[in-house]
């Protein structure tokens, strides 16, 4: 090193570098700044070794700790699962018909079931469960295969008309295009459209066609048959719509709505939870043998008698 030069104006030592007559003053970085900088370098080195950091062609270096965001999420999910294990267990073991009486479990089931529904069922039945043409509305009081919580759970578990599950509920309405004449089908369509308005199912030419072709499944009174999944034709609910075109198409080709068996994808607890959720949407039917909801409502004041009676 050559001799030190002091800048006369500022009194600061110079580095000896000079550009176009401008001298560089030697103002070193503050000590605390330097040490902070070294500390960040050390931190970065350790970080790169411990955590995924360096991008490679397909992924990044793994890091010595084996840490990953996916692992974090999985751990969190496992934690929640573990905390819910008891609830799931009792949900699987409980008699679904008695779920009403266990308020905590019912609340757990409907909440969990709501999540299961939105993930797995809303694609067909809608997020509000109102269904669509060909996909049953789960809010109304019409159930093709029964609307008790057990019935719903069975349907969810095994599905409808799918060939993967031997226990699936199965029925098939044949297409009548080969069996009936076009005019006969047209007559039948008009006849069926008038059934909800109180038309006698067996009256007239339409009634005769109905008796010969339809009553074996839909019943002589057109009231349907739940054991076959045959819809009631006298009510106001039309799964496939009641326009002339739709009904014609339906009778000609026969409907074939399929629901997959969810036991393949959902755990038994999830199946039961979603059944509880659907049952609670407003259309659920009480268990056979139990009094219907309405009969239990007497004098509202009676309801106040109980363990929490005020006054």
């Amino acid at each position, binding site marked *: 090193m050559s001799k030190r030069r002091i800048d006369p104006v500022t009194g600061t030592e110079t580095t000896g570098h000079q550009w176009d007559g401008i001298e560089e003053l030697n103002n070193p970085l503050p000590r605390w700044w330097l040490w902070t900088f070294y500390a960040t370098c050390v931190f970065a080195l350790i970080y790169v070794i411990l955590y995924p950091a360096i991008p490679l062609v397909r992924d990044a270096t793994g890091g010595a700790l084996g840490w990953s965001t996916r692992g974090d999420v999985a751990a969190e999910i496992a934690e929640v699962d573990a905390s819910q294990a008891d609830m799931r267990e009792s949900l699987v073991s409980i008699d679904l018909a008695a779920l009403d009486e266990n308020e905590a479990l019912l609340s757990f089931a409907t909440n969990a079931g709501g999540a299961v529904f939105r993930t797995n069922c809303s694609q067909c039945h809608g997020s509000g469960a109102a269904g669509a043409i060909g996909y049953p509305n789960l809010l109304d009081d019409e159930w093709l295969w029964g609307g008790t919580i057990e019935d719903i759970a069975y349907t969810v578990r095994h599905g409808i008309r799918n060939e993967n599950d031997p226990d699936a509920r199965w029925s098939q309405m044949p297409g009548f295009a080969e069996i009936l004449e076009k005019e006969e089908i047209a007559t039948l369509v008009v006849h069926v459209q008038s059934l909800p308005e109180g038309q006698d199912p067996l009256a007239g030419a339409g009634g005769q066609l109905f008796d010969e072709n339809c009553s074996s499944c839909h019943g002589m009174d057109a009231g349907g048959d739940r054991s076959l999944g045959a819809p009631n034709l006298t*009510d*106001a609910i039309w799964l496939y719509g009641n326009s002339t075109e739709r009904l014609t198409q339906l009778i000609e080709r026969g409907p074939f709505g399929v629901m997959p068996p969810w036991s393949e994808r959902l755990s038994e607890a999830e199946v039961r939870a979603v059944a509880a959720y659907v049952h609670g949407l407003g259309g659920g039917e009480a268990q056979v043998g139990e009094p219907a909801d309405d009969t239990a409502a007497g004098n509202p004041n009676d309801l*106040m008698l109980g363990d929490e009676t005020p006054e």
Partner: protein
Amino acid sequence: MSDQPLYVSRIPIFPRRVSGSYRTLKWWMMGLTLAIYYLTPWLRWDRGPNMPDQAVLIDLVNRRFYFFWIDIWPHEFYFVAGLLVMAGLGLFLFTAALGRVWCGYTCPQTVWTDLFLVVERWVQGDRNARMKLHNAPWTARKMRLKGTTWAIWLLIGLATGGAWVFYFTDAPTLARDLVTFQAPGMAWFTIAILTFTTFVFGGFMREQVCIYMCPWPRIQAAMMDEGTLTVAYRDWRGEPRGKGLRRREAAADLRVAGPLVGGRSPLIPMPGVPNTTTGARLETAGQDTRPPGDCIDCNACVTVCPMGIDIRDGQQMACITCALCIDACDQVMEKIGRPRGLIDYVALSDAPREAAGGAPIPAWRHAVRPRNLIYFGIWAGIGIGLVFALFVRPEIEMTVAPVRNPTFVTLADGSVRNAYDVRLRNKNGEARAFLLSPSMGTAADVSIESRPGSVVRVPADAQERVRVYLTAPADSEMAREAASDARLWVEDLAGGARAHVDTTFNGREN
């Protein structure tokens, strides 16, 4: 340009003891505010079973605010917002009328600093003794005196932090838990923070908090005008100062030609930095031939000032208008047989008038003027509005939110059903049953999801959410119309009170 630094390290201030009417007022305000702060959580108020018995309680866990007979739920937070607006406007009103009276008498920083000063004076003696002790080397005596002072400060700080947490939960229970070390961690944490801030702010930072940390001195200028009463020195009466004439002459050359302080300088006057004075005064300092004024330059007003300022320099930001200098000066004026009020609550607009020999304007004339009346009008209007809202607050509270996914459901018999999410609030200390019914004349039938009948039981001091169905028969107008008005009634079966909420019913849209 001033070469004053932006910050100089704190020079401790040792205010001298003073007595007088303003000091007495300050004692009373101090006692009152401290009593309110420390005792309020211990007031009991019987609200019946299952309800807290504390008169003032901020129940953050259950989101309730209890204030004597009033309880406020989260959806009624506008009451709290209204009170905050009133507090703000009240500050405007008082500042416009009386300057920084809030700072001088009721600000917690002032009150606790005052309290700490009492302790300091009790242990270490008055101004001179404290200054001597401060400059003395660290002997055993100094350590003992300072240590005692700090210990008492810490105890006060602890009590301050301790009183705060009682506002948020049942005080006797928490007190027991604190004594038995079972209180929640948050309680300890809060107490620790408030103890620390009280100790440091009240004991060591004092006027620094007012000058450097508090935004209020910066804001107050907008609220004050020349009609606002502030503590001021009647320089037309006091100047030229009698005793200090010669001294001032000598000092005049050394003084920094500072900005106009009387003209509300934007600079912060620094305690300990040589006081600045008006340029005009500097010019005449040497050759003043007028007869001496009433001020004898005894510095009494300076020694008693907790902010360490000289009020004779004119209005300045650091002044908190605590009026202790008025008390000190009045005592001196009495001793030398001059009228009181050399330092007094005066408005800026009074100065030229009084300097010209006019009679002083009574204080109430400054308080009652349009600006203050407008502030008071708005303030009172909000207050009346809040009281009105309090009295018309419905006894039964129900909110009805129609479910829109889907808007309606057709049932097997052709009837149309709408769903509503209904929230019922029960503000009583006992469980209540509410009967829901549709409006008279509508054909719709009401039912509640997964419950028999149409009665909702709501536990004490809670709200209940139920899904309610309105069902209109197939042939009814409601079922056919795209949308029609619906009214849901609720009746408190215990009291018989009725209320209703209007909503919409969606029918088949064809």
